[in-house]
């Protein structure tokens, strides 16, 4: 059996499909979040150095991971939109940006709330923190640039270029703790090396990361549906849909 993927590359056919997918991703996000929070607070032991403050790791690290993963996904969709001149890809990039910005802000704020009791400072200008702050500016720049250009196709192209140039920042964030002497600690998980943290802590972190990931897919699909409705406002399919849903005027 072959699926005609191109069928789903038009907003008209993708809109109902996305609507069917949202509850599943929301459900998965809820399950992973319940399991992750249970391990974070009830199962994971107290840290012998940091006491209970270390529990911030269960939101901080997954939020920081998502901030980078979403940027790469956003840039990927933007590149695809640029290369194929595909409007749905560009809409996906646009739909991911605000969620990426929120996770970046959360990574920065929860990091600050962790840094204050452990380092004695809310903020230091070390490479990890600074490059993550630049990531926030890249997201905000992408959103501002797209919304400042009236023609949506031109806005897509300009946004895509900014997103692609900004990709260089992601490996800088990731490797900053290796390349420079940072106050920020090293990676929580290293490829090819046994994790140094307790298995339960690792499990809690991974479950929270999965919850954030599923949540991201759900809200990105919600937002892409909004973008489709807004951009194709005067098209027949949106008009027919808006009449059939019975929204009050």
């Amino acid at each position, binding site marked *: 059996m072959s699926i005609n993927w191109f069928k789903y590359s038009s907003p008209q056919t993708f809109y109902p499909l996305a609507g069917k997918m949202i509850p599943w991703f929301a459900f998965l996000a809820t399950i992973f979040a319940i399991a992750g929070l249970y391990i974070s607070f009830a199962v994971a032991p107290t840290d012998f150095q940091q006491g209970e*403050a270390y529990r911030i790791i269960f939101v901080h690290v997954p939020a920081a991971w998502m901030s980078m993963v979403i940027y790469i996904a956003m840039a990927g969709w933007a590149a695809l939109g640029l290369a194929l001149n595909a409007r749905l890809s560009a809409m996906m990039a646009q739909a991911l940006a605000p969620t990426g910005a929120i996770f970046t802000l959360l990574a920065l704020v929860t990091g600050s709330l962790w840094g204050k009791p452990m380092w004695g400072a809310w903020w230091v200008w070390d490479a990890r923190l600074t490059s993550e702050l630049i990531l926030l500016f890249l997201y905000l720049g992408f959103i501002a640039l797209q919304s400042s250009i009236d023609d949506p196709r031109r806005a897509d192209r300009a946004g895509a270029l900014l997103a692609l140039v900004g990709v260089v920042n992601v490996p800088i964030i990731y490797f900053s703790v290796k390349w420079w002497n940072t106050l920020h600690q090293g990676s929580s998980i290293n490829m090819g090396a046994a994790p140094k943290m307790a298995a339960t802590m690792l499990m809690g972190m991974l479950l929270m990361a999965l919850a954030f990931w599923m949540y991201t897919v759900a809200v990105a699909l919600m937002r892409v549906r909004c973008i489709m409705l807004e951009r194709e406002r005067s098209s027949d399919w949106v008009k027919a849909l808006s009449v059939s849903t019975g929204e009050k005027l």
Partner: protein
Amino acid sequence: MQWTSWSAFFDMGGYAFYVWFSFGLTALCVVWEVISLHKRSKTALRLSKILAQG
């Protein structure tokens, strides 16, 4: 289970402010994002309906 009592749980070993602020803000962002998207979708549908019927 790590906690001897609920008050010990809420106290988070003296780090209550830092821990609960982190988790609370995250929860707040999630709730705000979902509600605002819900509203945005309703507004878009309402506008299209006006266009369709006008």
